């Protein structure tokens, strides 16, 4: 009897609870399960949208990166311009405009494309133009157009920085020309492997570039001192409100911005591992302060910690525009040669940027004397970079197409 009563109670209990409007344990668990699953799926939906919106699955894709795949195919002078737009420039500002005529290409400075207080004397801007000019010359030669370059034909302050007269000649392909599409600034770690003095010397070709010298810093102690100088300069630059702001303006943190502006600094160019890069893209955009902290940390733990050697381009006249254009051509030549030999290069100009800033604001020179101690007596620093064998390949950065910068 007792058993029968218990069976009845057990079999009826859930129905009784349902009929009375109460919730059984099963109902509660089921509702929690459904609710939990729904929340998790909604979260997955939000993350999936972030993947789509930030183009995590297509790094280096879209129109902003198309010029990297189009620079060889376009014939004639416009094709040479298509190679020129792939050159290095400060903060990827691409401060150039080209005018393509029947027998010449003129290169103009786009004065609005500046990094402000980071480059108060527009030294780096002109170096960037020199880089583009080197690619332009290589592109012309490879297409059977013999270039004759005249720098600053209208004077040092005029917007036209170079006139490149073209005449017919035999096509001159070269390893430097072939490297144009593979040359990217590599901000990632480099292998703990030395670059020999012979290899470093072979990176430098001074042909037609007077007034310049390249000083390599490879020994342990000078390298250590130079690394510390770079770290101090990075910290000083990020502590300088105006320099920090003017640099941050060029950071493109969303794929929409990258595709719209097609210039500037991007996460893809920071040398991160694929996993970290994806996470960085999925997270909300970082603030200026967070970006500054990241850069200083990378300078300490990656850039200086893994540099095989530092290169410094020096000159007796760092303020001369023609010298700056020559230095740009030399820098681009070094980078292209390095690329053709599987050597990575990263531009690291924070010391000279701080030197210029101190000079522009009338502040006491703190970096110039320290830098001078590491250089030969007659050489003023103009550009600085590190080289080494890369741990991973660098990624391309956005570019405006030749058509966008040609008039």
């Amino acid at each position: 009897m007792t058993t029968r009563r218990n069976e009845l109670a057990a079999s009826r209990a859930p129905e009784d609870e349902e009929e009375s409007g109460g919730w059984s344990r099963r109902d509660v668990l089921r509702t929690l399960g459904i609710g939990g699953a729904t929340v998790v799926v909604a979260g997955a939906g939000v993350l999936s949208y972030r993947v789509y919106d930030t183009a995590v699955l297509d790094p280096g894709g879209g129109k902003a990166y198309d010029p990297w795949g189009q620079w060889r195919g376009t014939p004639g002078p416009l094709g040479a311009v298509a190679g020129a737009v792939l050159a290095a420039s400060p903060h990827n500002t691409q401060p150039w405009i080209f005018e393509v005529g029947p027998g010449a290409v003129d290169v103009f400075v786009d004065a609005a494309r500046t990094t402000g207080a980071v480059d108060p004397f527009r030294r780096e801007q002109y170096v960037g133009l020199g880089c583009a000019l080197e690619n332009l010359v290589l592109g012309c030669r490879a297409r059977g157009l013999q270039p004759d370059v005249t720098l600053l034909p209208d004077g040092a302050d005029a917007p036209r920085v170079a006139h490149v007269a073209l005449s017919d000649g035999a096509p001159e392909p070269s390893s430097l020309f072939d490297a144009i599409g593979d040359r990217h600034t590599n901000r990632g770690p480099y292998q703990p492997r030395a670059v020999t003095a012979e290899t470093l010397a072979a990176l430098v070709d001074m042909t037609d570039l007077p007034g310049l010298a390249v000083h390599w810093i490879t020994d342990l102690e000078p390298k250590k001192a130079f690394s510390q100088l770079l770290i101090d300069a990075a910290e000083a630059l990020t502590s300088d409100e105006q320099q920090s702001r003017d640099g941050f303006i060029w950071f493109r943190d969303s794929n929409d911005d990258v595709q719209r502006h097609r210039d500037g600094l991007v996460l893809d160019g920071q040398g991160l591992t694929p996993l970290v890069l994806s996470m960085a893209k999925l997270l909300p955009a970082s603030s200026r302060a967070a970006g500054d902290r990241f850069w200083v940390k990378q300078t300490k733990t990656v850039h200086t910690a893994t540099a095989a050697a530092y290169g410094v381009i020096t000159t007796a006249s760092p303020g001369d525009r023609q010298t700056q254009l020559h230095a740009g051509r030399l820098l681009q030549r070094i980078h292209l040669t390095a690329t053709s030999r599987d050597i990575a290069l990263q531009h690291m100009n924070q010391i000279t940027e701080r030197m210029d800033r101190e000079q522009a604001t009338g502040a006491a020179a703190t970096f110039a004397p320290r830098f001078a101690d590491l250089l030969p007596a007659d050489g003023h620093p103009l550009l600085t970079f590190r080289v080494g064998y890369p741990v991973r390949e660098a990624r391309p950065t956005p570019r405006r197409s030749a058509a966008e910068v040609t008039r």
Partner: protein
Amino acid sequence: MSLRVQHRHRLAGRLGVAGGAFGVAAGAVQATVGTRIPEWTGAKAEPISLGLLTIGLSVIAGMAAARQRTPDLSVRARAVCALGLIGPGLLCLSTVGRLWYLPAILLLAAGTMSIDGWRDTATAIAQDWFRILLSALGACEVLMAAGAAPVLMAVGAASGIALIAAAWLPSAPLGVRVGLAVLGTVPFAALAWTAIVPIVVAVVALLVAVPVVRNDRTASVGHGSDSGRPR
């Protein structure tokens, strides 16, 4: 069905078809002259593809509007029609900018009006809730694939479709449903693992797929109401 309900369905149909037509026009404008009027079209980076997507979704909305006028439509089918109207109505707000304001109002109104009984609709939806969740995860994969490199795009789209198929083929053999669920998760997650989210989606999808693929009562979470004819 009362005359009042018939009248409402007719009105919803007209509003939906009009919304779809305006939507097609908005998509065509975006695809052709979108870059020239960015203040109207939302200054999109990919106006042509977004314009074409808008046209496609507008056509779906128009078809849903026409379909919901069918008398004696099941509650589930009516819910699908409403989704076909409301979904594009909301989605295209991010594809053609201000040009979508009018179509959005028309489609949202039509979608709302196409529903006969909210309680019955909710019950029908609840019965298929895990299938809907699995389909949503398939849609997540399609969304991720839409912004991916070509190979990943193809694999992601196929994976998303496989997941949706696994959710809505209850009469298929168990092996086929399991195969679709695995195909809909593992390859895309393996190829796109560095993006992390495809792995998250795959894990969640496999968990959600268990009750769906088994096709037992746990896949239906409602309380026994049928999803057939309207009451």
